[in-house]
């Protein structure tokens, strides 16, 4: 009954017990969210059924429909959950450093490490999300935009920052996600941390140009 990978997680005892219903529901919901990530990674969103989710999470069909309207709702909740955790990690790393180039480097390193640690989730989040339709794609774009502050501080740091286009942070994000997607499409998620110099350069370059960006990347590498 237990799906792979969930065995070590705590689960409420079966049968009659005195756990408050909201605690049971939260545990069942979390198991379904984790199941959704694994099932989509294994067989793709299109082929995933509600039956796969309930089997993998060890919950009944009735419970599933008490918690989610359909598989799309469950998947989107799982996606939000995963992205939320990822963004929190990146922001925490970013805020641990003082000045912008260091802050950007810390945030990007955390991003690459997190994606490399969970290749299936990485591919799902950045590359395969389109399979789940336009709603999911809009969530993806919204999630990416949450990282905007990590880039936008470059405007204060850059000498002519005020004169840069309003879209500069989106350009930097596009450069970074382009490099990451290229690695993920080639099946090299584990090697993402080795991309740090390049994604850092892509982040700095629209703000301070190639010369200064290359210098900063060199300095931060040491």
């Amino acid at each position, binding site marked *: 009954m237990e799906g792979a990978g969930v065995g070590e997680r705590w689960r409420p005892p079966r049968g009659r017990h005195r756990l408050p219903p909201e605690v049971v529901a939260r545990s069942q919901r979390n198991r379904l969210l984790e199941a959704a990530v694994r099932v989509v990674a294994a067989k793709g969103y*299109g082929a995933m059924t509600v039956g796969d989710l309930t089997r993998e999470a060890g919950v009944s069909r009735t419970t599933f429909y008490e918690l989610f309207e359909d598989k799309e709702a469950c998947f989107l909740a799982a996606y939000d959950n995963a992205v939320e955790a990822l963004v929190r990690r990146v922001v925490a790393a970013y805020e641990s450093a003082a000045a912008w180039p260091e802050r950007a480097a810390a945030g990007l390193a955390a991003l690459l490490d997190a994606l490399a640690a969970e290749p299936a989730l990485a591919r799902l989040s950045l*590359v*395969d*999300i*389109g*399979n789940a*339709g*336009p709603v999911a*794609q*809009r969530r993806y*774009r919204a999630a990416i935009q949450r990282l905007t502050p990590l880039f936008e501080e470059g405007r204060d740091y*850059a000498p*002519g920052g005020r*004169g*840069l*286009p*309003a*879209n500069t942070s*989106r*350009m*930097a*994000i*596009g*450069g*970074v*996600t*382009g*490099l990451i*997607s*290229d690695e993920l*499409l080639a099946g090299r998620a584990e090697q993402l941390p080795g991309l740090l*110099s*390049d994604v850092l*350069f*892509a982040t700095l*370059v*629209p*703000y*301070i*140009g*190639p*010369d200064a960006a*290359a210098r900063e990347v060199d300095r931060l590498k040491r």
Partner: protein
Amino acid sequence: MAGSETRRQLILEAMVRVVGRKGYKETSVADVIEEANVSRTTFYKHFDDKHECFLAAYDLVVERVLGAVIANCDGEQPWLERMRVGLTTVVELFALDPELARTAIVEVAAAGADARQRHWNAVTRLSEFLEAGRELSGDRELPENLDLMAAGAVSGLIFDELLTGRAERLPELLPDLLFAMLVPYVGPGAATAEMRRAAAG
């Protein structure tokens, strides 16, 4: 009676239109044969299923976009000029044909891993045009994949516009797109100057 090859072309054109209008998931073979005005038998004579037909239609779209860029950039112009012309070509093609644009950039993501790979291959083929820009950066040690950074920045901006249904307004974004494309090579000062020239002209 149209020849077999012509009917194949009609089906591919219809696929691009219907997917751009309804979305890949919502598109059925029935929609495509109705749009193309061919029979179901004809469709299945040429393609196994909707997915195979979409991939062939996608190749057609890519050749059309690349063909237009190559035709307009003759290689005689200076690099900066060539980049501006190439980008303008893509943006105008998308603005004139929002259905094609949506199929090419947004809906392709819903059509499976092989379709997404085709999209990215097309982006990298287009970005090869950028590589000559490296000469402008002198003998500096720059990352090898400047072209992917530029391509990622430009396609991210275009994707956002198309996702929110603003294909017609893409030409207004041209100065920003030009900045995004040039800045890894020439820096923000020179890229801003090009952006202003594009906005003025």
